[in-house]
């Protein structure tokens, strides 16, 4: 009997070529064009020829002198913050509700989650119809005697952005709900029972026990909602196409309009860089928040 020769630990023998297909696609589709994007935002590239010059921060300065671009930045921030706050509040309330002892909780979870799987474009069209001048919302207002509140919702710059927010929240509140629900279900029952024995009421238990224990779900939910809504494109295209005027133009719809319709590539890319900074900022804040974990 010969002793087996010494080999590297078994799992260390996974061959390197296992990584090649994924790495090749990832580098080609994400890494290279992202780096190119950052580089090209400092040039006057026309999208076709290879001779382009370095123009420094000119594209970025143009953004802050362009009322349409500023409107898009403002709309994106307002939309992202509104959706993040409201969707998470609703998602949390729904999760607390369907986590309880209500008898219909299983069917309720399915109902609240159903809009999440719909095509966002389709959700946008449905709400576009509901909010049209002779649509269901106005008719419902009339039916309950509030006809004086009727509006041309999507045609009015005062309401259009809020209406887009409503459609997005309707669609994705169920997504926030399932993440909060997973967090709530991970809390051991004894902890709440102990709090009850200590005389804590429902509100007190929510603030002092439940919320700290689902800290992880809260942070992940906030980040997902924020990143998702900073890139918002589909519902806007379906509901308003960015109008009326520029009232619902977002960064994504502007990139589409500038980059593809008018062919001003470096300017469109500079807008994308600004958006990347927003997203990176949100991710950095999230990272800071998760480092303060609560354990039990």
């Amino acid at each position, binding site marked *: 009997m010969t002793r087996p020769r010494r080999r590297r630990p078994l799992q260390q023998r996974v061959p390197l070529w296992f990584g090649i297909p*994924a790495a090749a696609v990832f580098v080609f589709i994400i890494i290279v064009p992202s780096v190119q994007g950052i580089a090209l935002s400092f040039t006057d590239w026309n999208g076709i020829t290879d001779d382009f010059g370095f123009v420094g921060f000119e594209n970025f300065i143009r953004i802050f002198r362009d009322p349409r671009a500023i409107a898009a930045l403002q709309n994106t921030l307002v939309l992202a913050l509104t959706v993040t706050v409201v969707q998470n509040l609703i998602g949390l309330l729904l999760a607390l509700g369907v986590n309880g002892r209500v008898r219909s909780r299983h069917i309720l979870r399915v109902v609240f989650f159903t809009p999440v799987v719909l095509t*966002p474009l389709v959700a946008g069209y449905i709400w576009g119809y509901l909010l049209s001048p002779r649509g269901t919302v106005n008719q419902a207002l009339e039916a309950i005697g509030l006809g004086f509140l009727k509006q041309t919702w999507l045609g009015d710059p005062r309401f259009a952005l809020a209406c887009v927010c409503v459609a997005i929240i309707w669609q994705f509140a169920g997504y926030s709900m399932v993440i909060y629900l997973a967090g709530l279900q991970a809390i051991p029952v004894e902890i709440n029972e102990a709090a009850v024995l200590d005389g804590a009421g429902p509100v007190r238990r929510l603030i002092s026990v439940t919320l700290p224990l689902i800290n992880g779900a809260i942070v992940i939910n906030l980040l997902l909602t924020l990143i998702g809504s900073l890139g918002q494109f589909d519902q806007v295209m379906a509901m308003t196409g960015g109008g009326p005027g520029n009232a619902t133009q977002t960064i994504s719809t502007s990139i589409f309009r500038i980059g593809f319709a008018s062919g001003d590539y470096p300017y469109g890319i500079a*807008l994308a860089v600004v958006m990347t900074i927003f997203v990176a900022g949100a991710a950095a804040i999230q990272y800071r928040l998760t480092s303060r974990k609560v354990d039990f």
Partner: protein
Amino acid sequence: MHRYTWRTGTVEVLLIGAALLTLVPIVGLVNVAFKAPSNLSTALDFAGPYTLDNFATAWVDGMLGAALINSALITSISVALLVVFGSMVSYLISRRTAGWSKGAYTLFLAGLVIPGQLSLLPLYQTMVDVRLVGTLPGIILVNVGAGLPFTVFLFTTFLRDLPRDYEEAAMIDGAGPVRAFTTVVFPLLRPIVGTVVILNAIAIWNSFFVPLLYLAGTGLETVPVRLYGFVGQYTSNWPVIFAGLIITILPVLVVFFFLQRSVMQGFSGGVKG
């Protein structure tokens, strides 16, 4: 503690109210889609006459049959490649401990927060140069690239917690690493493969921005892109538009209702890591 109190009853009533409100747009969608052209009643008015003609019109004029086939083809191939490429690279990342392995993982995770808008225009130009715009391989490549960061994250987290005993036993029995992966490790990945498939399939089926850029105007238009053109053509004929919308979302809804629990778990569990 476990009794059904008046407080639970109040919560239940409120929740059912919220559920009905959530369903109003969907009920309206279905109701309008069946209305005959002479029927000018509103979305929540259930007086007839009803017809199936809108579905026929949407199907034929919208060329939705072809679009459904395109969507099914693009979604299934993209998801299959994501599962294969993603599980392989994650196996490598989770089993090798060298510094480059951690670096590669960090780079994939960075892909989670780099918005697609940043790479959009340069990538589009490159794809024009290599003649992949408007082709099946082109859109599939973009889908796979975009889906990889989250897929690698899911597979790697799962593989790191997976006991190594089985694959070691297989290797001691003489299986090479490739055989150990295909016959031992991959079958153990089943639960996470389910999550990866569900999340990617729904995202790719529903995606609009990327296929709009790469496929609009070609014969390969996916359902959302086709719908976008279709709605432009039928601007105020809501019954036909809504019939088209229903045809579009029906496949996803059917899958969801059969796999509710796994779908909801996929969406919530996918981000727990």
